[in-house]
């Protein structure tokens, strides 16, 4: 921070500078704190106010990210963890290991990536659909609307562990509620199916993720819908638009900016979600539901191979940046055409 002492004495009233406020009443006060020129002070105040936040952001987010990227270029295993500077340079070999799809490590990473893409697309689409349905149907006033709204928001507000561990109890094969209802009471299946291992585990993680994220879509879309002026609906009703037509021609176009942000945020959060699969499946996820954040954790950090784990994480970061850039490009281009 540059402090420049002014040379103008405190009693320089009437010196003719219109920009300067009258100097403070006591000349003594003026000398204790160095007087910056006014322009600098007025400009400097906002930066000063955000300085703590900026420092913390650097410290907590950006610097560790840069260190992580640096970690991916060295062979950081348990032998060097006490003294990172002694770790031998790995060059690009950590990356080669991650993208070599003929080798088991790369193949497993690719499989996990594809599973995660499928999982994210399905979850985001369904979350958006349920959120939209909920928001549209809850627009009108009816009795119990407030209670219903609060109830819908509960899954999003619950701490992750509490919600997902309850699901893991529900999905137990022998003693879980889901199998009890489906098999013992409704007799839909003959043999009790597995929900947490095997083929059905993908469906389980989609359902649990959907249960956690759709209230967020619901909340955002409800707020977005409040901002659509009523007269548009009335005008379209006068023109003979039915319910479906109104949705297509009034609601969705007016919600475009909201949807743009919502879909992107949901995609990124769901793709990176570590808590849900970790709590639902424990430390090792079944192969059919091997989401990428758990996969990277399992295949590197658990085996003390931090260099490899960092390389995989950097690749993940690059992919998500690419997706975000393409998405923003497409959506903003369409808007400028319209």
């Amino acid at each position, binding site marked *: 921070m540059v402090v420049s002492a002014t040379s103008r004495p405190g009693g320089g009233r009437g010196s003719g500078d219109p920009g300067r406020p009258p100097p403070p009443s006591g000349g003594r006060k003026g000398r204790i704190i160095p007087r910056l020129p006014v322009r600098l002070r007025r400009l400097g105040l906002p930066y000063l106010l955000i300085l703590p936040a900026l420092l913390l952001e650097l410290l907590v987010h950006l610097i560790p990210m840069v260190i992580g990227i640096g970690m991916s270029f060295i062979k950081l295993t348990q032998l060097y963890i006490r003294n990172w500077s002694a770790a031998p340079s790995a060059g690009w070999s950590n990356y080669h290991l991650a993208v070599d799809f003929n080798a088991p*490590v790369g193949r497993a990473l690719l499989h996990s990536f594809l599973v995660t893409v499928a999982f994210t697309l399905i979850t985001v689409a369904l979350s958006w659909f349920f959120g939209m349905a909920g928001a549209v149907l809850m627009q009108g006033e009816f009795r119990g609307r407030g209670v219903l709204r609060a109830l819908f928001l509960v899954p999003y507000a619950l701490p992750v562990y509490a919600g997902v561990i309850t699901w893991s109890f529900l999905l137990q094969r022998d003693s879980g509620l889901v199998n009890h209802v489906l098999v013992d009471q409704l007799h839909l299946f003959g043999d009790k199916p597995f929900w947490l291992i095997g083929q059905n585990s993908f469906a389980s993680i989609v359902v649990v993720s959907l249960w956690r994220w759709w209230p967020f879509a619901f909340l955002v879309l409800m707020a977005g819908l409040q901002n659509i002026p009523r007269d548009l609906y009335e005008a379209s009703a006068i023109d003979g638009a039915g319910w479906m037509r109104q949705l297509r021609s009034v609601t969705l176009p007016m919600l475009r900016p909201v949807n743009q942000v919502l879909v992107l945020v949901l995609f990124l959060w769901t793709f990176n979600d570590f808590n849900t699969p970790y709590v639902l499946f424990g430390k090792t996820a079944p192969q059919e539901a091997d989401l990428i954040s758990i996969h990277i954790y399992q295949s590197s950090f658990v085996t003390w191979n931090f260099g490899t784990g960092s390389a995989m994480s950097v690749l993940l970061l690059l992919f998500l940046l690419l997706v975000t850039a393409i998405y923003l490009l497409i959506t903003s281009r369409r808007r400028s055409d319209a």
Partner: protein
Amino acid sequence: MLTRKPYVFAVAGALMLAAAACGSSDSSTSGSAAAPASITYWASNQGTSLESDKQILQPELDRFTKETGIKVNLEVVPWSDLLNRILAAATSGKGPDVVNIGNTWSASLQATGAFVPLDDTQLNALGGKARFLGPSLAATGAPGQPPVGAPLYSTAYALYYNKHMFKDAGIADPPKTWDELVADGKKLTKDGKWGLAVEGASVSENAHMIFTLGQQHGGDLFDSSGKSQFDSPANVAAVKQYLDFIATDKITNPSDAAYSNGTEALQDFIGGKAAMVMWQSASGTLKTGGMTPDDYGVAPIPLPDPSSGGKQVDSMVGGINISVFDSAANKDGALKFVKFMTSKQTQQDLNKAYGSLPTVTDAYDDPAFQTPEIKTYQQILANTAAPLPQVANESQFETLVGNAMNQLFADAASGKPITDESVKAKLTEANQQMAG
């Protein structure tokens, strides 16, 4: 005047924040010898809960403080967090003075250099190498290097069986061979009850079992040059034998393939849903679950036929070691604490409370260690237990092989056929992922 006030407060605020951030980092280091001497101790969760651990350890720590004047700051760390916290302490250089570690981690942690190796002088101060149980001392680090900890509690795997269910099925004695075990299991599997419970999705349980069964089939996980050979015929046979409990013998509930948190198989045994379970030192948990030695019996896990060429191994050497951090603020105090924890009185008190075995030979004269269960464990530890390979990438082996077995168990549970080829394919994949 109006523009100056916010400016002043903003500067003051930023400086205060920076000062607070700098100041708080110093208060977390353990007390050095300047103030009344103290050490920080991270204990592992050996009892049924973190609270019960504190209650069991506190009288011993008070006795230590009385004898030496050093205060002990105890923290009981759950297993899910312990390895991460040890890693963080090793990386940052800021951690406790003393910590409990699982003995299978010894070689990996030894390679980090974060722990104080106990040379001969220090071992003699603890009573000398001969005072400790052989297998337990072997599990304290790579062979040929000074150990990075002293053995604290010893455990081994044994076969727990439900005496009532055995009597009802007309079985007089626990099985001594694998054929007998499968036959007994088939007699016990009826009316919604199963013969044997396994923790099929637990990486560590699977890794331990594969080691033991692999030894019985005459194979090793790592060859003499230290290269992994998980897909050797012996290891494939071992995995297939374990999976067959669900796949072909059908003495284990297929749901067990999803048991992962280390409690479910035992809970099935306590609840009478399974008649047998292979577990480490479960007596504490069984007692809490309401079972008495009249309800359950302990027998060694079956051994292979001596003529088959396999090793007579029926358990890995389980246990907890106590280690001193190289970055400890009070190393002398820490070493004194290690000596205290391996002393006869402390060993007897703690191992009685936890149901494990003392690691020092002179502690066995207490009548509490003369029960049939303890005697069975002593036999196992003395004669038929072998330590897991003490190599630096042991944790990688556990994760890779454990994971492969989880997937194979899931296949077996959903009815897919388990063949030697499918098992070998999975193990080869795990083998290839072992980074050099």
